[in-house]
């Protein structure tokens, strides 16, 4: 039977063309995620070699445009592109024509005129990556758009879980904190649900968006709910959200007292993750962040290889395509 199936697949037209853009986890199928994680793993092995640079994307251009401050995401994309021998250019909103009031459309048209192969964009407004995709011919990678999506963060989190716990399917992940304002949470809920994990959101009611259960997660308001999880994913508590009069929570002090992730609230062996940057002593206790069960540094390392995998996947025709030799070269069977 299996042989017949293979033959039938041979008769089918080639698999879907590679994704043009990575804007939302919602655009991906499970096979896409599995392929990306497998590619990341082969890149991770390649980085163990003495010469860390691969020739795979030689001659390609990757432009990073960051309209919001970022350390780990922008540096990780830049290094990922360099490790693959692509030319990179990074533009920050401050000090650029954006400061002079240029619209995103015009910035996109300007950058598009250089024919970049990939534009990586972070923007405070939802939908900015779609707009750039509309006005340029480049592959667009969303490095965070407002409160909407941060797909490479979710992919690197999946990769970290897969590598550290050996599987994703069937695991229980508690996401704790300010879900309302978190693109990381939205991408992770979708990604974890796609891969068969169970997700529980935990936090104060005003910070858990109404109707979010429809994404395929559960909601609990008591911090005790994290005890049942295999992985506790702590979200950054953004101080600017606590501006006077916003009243999402009465005070950071009360938030920490009620929802801060401390050693006492965890059970031994639970893994702890955080997308960074952390507010030690607010959403996460310093001792928890530094403990052996914390995967926070591992997440950063995963970020590099996952972003290499994303760039590779967008710019080649996938593992079965013309660039198959490149994967072979770096040791993937």
């Amino acid at each position, binding site marked *: 039977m299996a042989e017949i199936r293979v033959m039938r697949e041979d008769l089918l037209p080639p698999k879907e063309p590679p994704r043009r853009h990575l804007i939302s986890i919602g655009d991906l199928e499970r096979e896409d995620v599995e392929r990306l994680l497998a590619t990341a793993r082969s890149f991770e092995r390649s980085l163990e070699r003495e010469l860390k640079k691969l020739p795979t994307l030689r001659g390609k251009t990757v432009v990073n445009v960051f309209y919001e401050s970022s350390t780990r995401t922008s540096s990780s994309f830049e290094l990922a592109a360099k490790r693959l021998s692509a030319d990179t250019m990074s533009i920050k909103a401050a000090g650029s024509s954006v400061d002079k009031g240029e619209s995103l459309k015009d910035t996109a048209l300007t950058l598009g005129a250089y024919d970049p192969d990939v534009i990586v964009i972070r923007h405070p407004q*939802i939908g900015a990556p779609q707009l750039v995709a509309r006005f340029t011919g480049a592959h667009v990678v969303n490095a965070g758009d407002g409160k909407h999506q941060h797909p490479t963060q979710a992919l690197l989190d999946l990769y970290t879980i897969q590598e550290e716990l050996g599987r994703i399917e069937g695991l229980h992940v508690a996401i704790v904190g300010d879900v309302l304002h978190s693109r990381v949470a939205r991408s992770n809920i979708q990604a974890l649900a796609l891969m068969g994990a169970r997700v529980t959101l935990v936090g104060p009611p005003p910070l858990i968006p109404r109707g979010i259960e429809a994404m395929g997660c559960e909601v609990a308001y008591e911090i005790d709910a994290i005890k049942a999880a295999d992985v506790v994913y702590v979200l950054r508590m953004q101080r600017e959200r606590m501006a006077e009069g916003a009243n999402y929570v009465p005070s950071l002090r009360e938030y920490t007292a009620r929802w801060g992730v401390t050693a006492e609230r965890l059970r031994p062996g639970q893994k702890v993750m955080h997308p960074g940057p952390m507010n030690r002593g607010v959403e996460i206790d310093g001792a928890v962040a530094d403990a052996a069960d914390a995967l926070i540094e591992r997440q950063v390392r995963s970020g590099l290889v996952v972003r290499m995998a994303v760039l590779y996947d967008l710019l080649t025709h996938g593992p079965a395509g013309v660039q198959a030799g490149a994967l072979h070269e770096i040791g993937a069977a």
Partner: protein
Amino acid sequence: MLFGKTGEENLVVRGARVIDPAEGVDALLDVRVDAGVVAQLGTNLETNEHRVIDGEGLVLAPAFVDPHVHLRTPGREDEETIATGSAAAAAGGYCAILAMPNTEPVVDSAPVLGSLTEAAQTDAEVPVGFLAAITKGQEGAELTEMAELGDAGAAGFTDDGRPVVAPGLMRRALQYSSVTGRRLALHCEEPTLSKGGQMHEGAVSAELGFAGYPSVAESLMVARDLALAGYERRPLHLMHMSARESVEALSRAQVGGVAATGEVTPHHLCLTDEAVRSLDSNVKMNPPLRAEEDRQALIAGLRDGTIAAVATDHAPHARHEKEVPFEAAPFGVTGLETAFPALYTHLVEPGLLKLETVLERMSTGPARAYGLDAPRIAVGAPANLVLLDLNASRRVAESDFRSRSANSWLLGETVKGQVRLTVAAGRVAYEG
């Protein structure tokens, strides 16, 4: 109260299915117009050397009245003018439209209003009525000089685009507007609940990450204003209703004897918040597209007459202002040229509303809500007629718009139901 070109057309529309729900007419008839007035209905009418229009296979109905249009003049003539907006109205089958006062400057004084009514006399392809503001500068602090504005021809009063936030001021507006004999029309939005909201609060906003604009932000204000109207025994008109709870509150108030009317837009009748998944700025409007249960309640409210009127809330925006990420885009979509085909395609064809209901709510309903003479197909009535081809389809394309803006939610969609002829105030305003 209406200002624009009029005519004394002589014509005969032959063999159309004449539907005037308010007059109880639905028959294959010829209609003769003499000097801009309906002169005779019957079969095989004498043409008297009038121009003859073949109506065979078409529907002839009272032309539409749009109680909610933004003409953007004065101030944003790059987005719309009296001439282009009224030409768009004519192409949509309208014989009268009401323009909102949230312009730059706001229509809050007789001189500003006078400049508009004067311009409309020469520029307006179909008669236009102008609403004036309830409060000076629409700032929600001081009442405008409503009596003088009424004398200068204001068709009603509204702070549309903004709610009248203070209940005490709303009450004074209801009391004082009685001296004008004109309606107050209200944009119901509780601003601390809608603050920052980009779309309906629900499962879709939760997933997309947009700040939510919950239904209760509207229905709370609707309930307050209906309570005040009941207490003051004054009529009022609720604009662009979007939430199920608002329809329920209006229905309860009407049963309780409040003289309240309501309007709903084609986009709230045809779309839900699911459409926002496209992140297309042409589905961003205030109030936002809501959930399917809200849409069904709006359709039911229109069907049973709780909601008297369809209003387009035609809100033109410059292309560069909409070609931005969803969150940065202004609220509003155009609608004058697509209202009938949108409703026919999305509601009449699937059997959700009867054609007669749609025709009535686009014509008689809105006219009555504002105390205007309703368009009629009856001997002696001014000729306000629309000839519709229900079988003709077209793909909505930017290049076809007479409006100066093209921020339509229907771009690229194929819709059924085309306007072939619009006669407004006795004058042929559009032929297509």
